């Protein structure tokens, strides 16, 4: 039987500065676990995953702000966090692009998945909505609007 190998970087101890944010990340972890274990009951099928997306977004945003906006964590720690799944590197990559600063999830910009090759409703700026007062939530992640101009 082959030896079970764990990913070398995963077992590596976190770089300095992790102690500062560990508790908060732990809170996100707990929230995520709770969301995963929450009974979906008779929720609409699309809504079942909304909390998961939401928490993933919040956690990624947290790491992103710590590194890019507040300069609170080191490059090493940031890389370590990405590697260990504390943040979604792909989503952060989108946030760096103009027009995607507030993107809620990657599914919402995936035009190939929609019938008319369009993005999700939440990507439409509030100003361009036909009925501005109407409160919409997108099907993918429950986003209420993530246009940069909102």
């Amino acid at each position, binding site marked *: 039987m082959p030896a079970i190998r764990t990913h070398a970087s995963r077992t590596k101890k976190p770089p*300095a500065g*992790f*102690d500062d*944010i*560990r508790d908060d990340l732990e809170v996100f972890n707990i929230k995520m676990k709770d969301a995963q274990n929450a009974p979906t009951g008779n929720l609409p099928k699309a809504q079942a995953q909304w909390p998961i997306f939401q928490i993933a977004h919040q956690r990624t*945003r947290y790491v992103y702000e710590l590194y890019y906006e507040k300069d609170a964590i080191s490059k090493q720690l940031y890389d370590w966090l990405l590697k260990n799944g504390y943040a979604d590197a792909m989503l952060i990559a989108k946030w760096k692009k103009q027009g995607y600063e507030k993107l809620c999830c990657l599914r919402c910009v995936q035009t190939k998945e929609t019938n008319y090759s369009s993005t999700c409703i939440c990507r439409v700026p509030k100003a361009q909505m036909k009925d501005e007062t109407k409160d919409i939530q997108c099907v993918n992640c429950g986003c209420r609007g993530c246009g940069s101009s909102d």
Partner: protein
Amino acid sequence: MLRSTHKPSGNAPPPLPPGWTEHKAPTGHTYYYNAATKESTYKRPGLAEIASPAPPPPPIAGANPNASFLQHSAIPNLSNPAAANAWQAQFNAPPQHQQNQRGGFGGRGGRGGNDRPRPQPRDKPKSSTPIPGCEPWVLVYTKYGRRFVYNPTKQASYWRIPEKVMKGVIELDIKGIQDKATGDKSASAEPTTEPKDGDTEMAEAQEAEEEQQEIGSDYEEVEVTDSEGEHDDDNGEEGEHKSKRQRTEEPEEEEQGPVEFSEEDFAAQLQAMGADYGLDPGEYDDGDPDAWPEGAEGLEISESDSRELFKDLLADHGVNPFSPWEKLIDEGSSLVDDPRWTVLPNMKTRREVWEEWSRAHIQLSKERRAKEEKKDPRIPYLAFLQAKANPKLYWAEFRRKYRKEPPLRDTNLADKEREKLYRDYIARLKLPLETQKKDLSALLRGVPLKDLNNKTPHENLPSQLLSDIRYVSLQASVRDPLIQAYIETLPPPPEEGEAVDDEASRKERAERRKREDALREREKAVEEQKRRQRRQLEHGRAVLREEERELERAQHVDGRKGIQSQLLAEREKKGADAGAEGGDEA
């Protein structure tokens, strides 16, 4: 002017039955108290069928809860007749009478609905003392500490003390001062005699006043003039009118009030009362905005101030600057309850300020950490082990039990290392004490003198010692005396110069040595080169000399003759050799 409480006889209510006294509640209601039966009532006792003049209704509890409380709490004080009389003397004017009288001052006419008397300073006779030597005369003290002389027989009273009585008064004063000095309170000058029944005293005061007016030309004794009375009144009026507050404490305050109320006194009192009610001077209007203390008026918070306030709030509540904003919102109920939360208009600005604050704080903590020296992570862990570990716990149990403790969460120490230390520590705990002591002394001997010497403070042992399992595993009670004893036997720290030598100076010295070495090297090289040069020079000279000598020799052998003679010489030499041989043979 002393306000008269004189009642016209026609209007006077029937006298009270014996044992009853009349009192005024702080609300202004008149009530009656029987000291013997400890009974109090609003109805005028004794003559119930005769309609008492406008029997005051019981106070409305909602309107002034304090009032009824104060009224009842005041009663027990009056069980002593003297106190009761004094009390009565202050509060015995019936309300309707006051109303009439105050009408004269013109301040009160407009507000008939308010039957509560307006609190205001009113001077009243408080006690009287017979003046020794001039028998009929008595010296009367008023509530505010002023005094006048009164002659009961002639029913005359004067603010200014007549000359014939003056001597006695001075005597009395001296006696009072002496009494005070000896601390004999019972013989103090003021309340030596019991004050008389309030009504009569008031009447006397009134009559004295009248007499003053009659003989006013003889004595210019009027110190308290109408104008001052009005003045006081105006102030009181203004204060009450503007603040429109119930001041139930007022009667008590009056008792020990200042001697004379000036305008400043009123302003100060108003402010003090405002402070009692938690109001800023700007919130009630005393009609004199210039006199408000600095910053009292409507507190205009500038934007930067409010931002700073919000930052203070964040700091005071121990918000972690690394935490996300959502966490603050989810758990920040104590934050929201704080009044400083509302200094910022909306959530957006709050978030902005929070971001600013957290950024600054993260920077601060970074700088602080950079300044802090690197500490061996094992030291706190071992200290924790010493406090908490015990042989009954396996490592797994121990780790589980204390997983939340900071020494067990420190990422600088690997879990493996922690486990190893734990096991070592537990193993060492089982060793006999003697062995542990021996190990400790071996450890102590191993520490260089530079780190551990007789100047080392006990709290500041070197980390080499603290991070060693042999140090930790021995109980502190056994260990510390051992270390202390060992430290005392040690010599002082090595040479001052060496002690001072820190990293920088050592580096500098090394540099210098290197420079000197380089110099020496270079000198050596130069020397070598010089020597070589010299040798070359000498060699050259030698070659030259050799050539010269050759040349000289060549010059010496000149022409043919030279060669011939040479050959001849050679031949001769040969011949001689042969001859010598022949001779030898022969």
